[in-house]
């Protein structure tokens, strides 16, 4: 999954007008799923969902309860809380990856979703980096420098590793932000085993 295309966003809000608006903002870029309460949000959650925009104040199952459920089940999704007021608490402590204050703009919403997908991408890139390093180490085992120099597969691997190192360095700038740093670790914690094949 690349950050720019094909991602799926689940919009959860009891106000259907809000859901409709967010859908209009996002559907040109992402596949949209929607839910109007916490219960159906949990039903809508599946492997395809990458980002959840979660209304905090909903009748019945609250946004926080949905979030708790997501963490308990270990779903590999990033969650932005949608709130009417600026959160007066630390979103890092609450387990949200980001937040959106209502009313929001198209630009703001796209920026938040893009940001969450970017840190997911960073977690994926670090995993791929690991996998390439393991492959390179395996190729090096018991081989002379001469043999390695003659091996096009090894040269190709080395080139991919340096490319990825540049990408990782550029992506790492976002880690200075506490919530991005923690959300990246959460993406590592929740990564499903199937993603891990390099």
């Amino acid at each position, binding site marked *: 999954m690349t950050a720019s295309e094909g991602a799926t966003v689940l919009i959860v809000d009891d106000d259907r007008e809000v859901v409709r608006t967010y859908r209009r903002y996002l559907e040109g870029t992402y596949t949209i799923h929607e839910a109007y309460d916490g219960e159906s949000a949990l039903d809508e959650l599946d492997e395809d969902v990458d980002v959840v925009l979660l209304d905090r104040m909903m009748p019945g199952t609250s946004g926080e309860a949905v979030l708790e459920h997501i963490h308990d089940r270990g779903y590999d999704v990033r969650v932005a809380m949608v709130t009417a007021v600026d959160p007066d608490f630390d979103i*890092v*402590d609450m387990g949200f990856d980001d937040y959106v204050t209502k009313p929001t703009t198209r630009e703001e919403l796209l920026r938040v979703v893009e940001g969450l997908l970017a840190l997911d991408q*960073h*977690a994926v890139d*670090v*995993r791929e*980096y*690991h*996998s390439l*390093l*393991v492959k390179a*180490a*395996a190729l090096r*085992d018991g081989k002379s420098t001469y043999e390695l120099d003659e091996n096009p597969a090894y040269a190709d691997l080395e080139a991919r590793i340096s490319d990825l190192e540049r990408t*990782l360095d550029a992506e*790492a*700038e976002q*880690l*200075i932000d*506490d919530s991005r*740093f*923690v959300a*990246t*670790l*959460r993406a*590592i*914690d929740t*990564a499903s085993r199937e993603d*891990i094949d390099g």
Partner: protein
Amino acid sequence: MAEGDARADRYPLDDTLPVGLGDIGPGMNILVSGPPMSGKRQLVFDLLAPEGTSADPIVVMTTDDPVLRIRTQFEDRGVRFDPTTFRIVDATGAPGDTDPAVHRVSSPADLTGMGVAFTQAVDEMATPDRLRLGFVSISTLLQYVDAERAFSFLHVLSRRTSAAGYLGVYSIDPTTHEDRFVNVVTSIFDAAVEIRDQDGDRELRVRGISGVPPEWTPFPY
């Protein structure tokens, strides 16, 4: 880092290493590797609080070393156990009394929890410009998460401290892992300090620092 005043940001190491490496640049991450009982933890702590240098704020993340022992180690080095400048992220899972200088995480398997605790520790120290992070140990982390998650965690944590200009010092016991894993994890770090025991004599070499030849040097106990 701005080149002009880069020296001002460097981290003095004093005579901690017997190889004439007097200080190290900001944002570096160092791996200290050695077999059991080789003194690598002492070396990690020495690099965090070198004798005779003015103390930088310190965070120690532990997956196995008990808080009390770490505390003693630093008290022996003349570091005051003051939560404004010294904090421990304790992921050993050991129970303990509430202590403002100790951030508890249930287990090393909780990578997110360790990250949250680190950000809280740094926030509560008012996000200093300089800080030394110690991590003991990678080997224990590996008992709780698979190699790939451990690698990812260490990569993200080390890049986080690097971006802030902090110094990171991590320990590993290479004898408990496959060589291949050790090689792969070493590539996360800017420099590696290796300790070995040669017929009862301890030696050390530093790799990855320009101007410091990677030669084995006696390192008495």
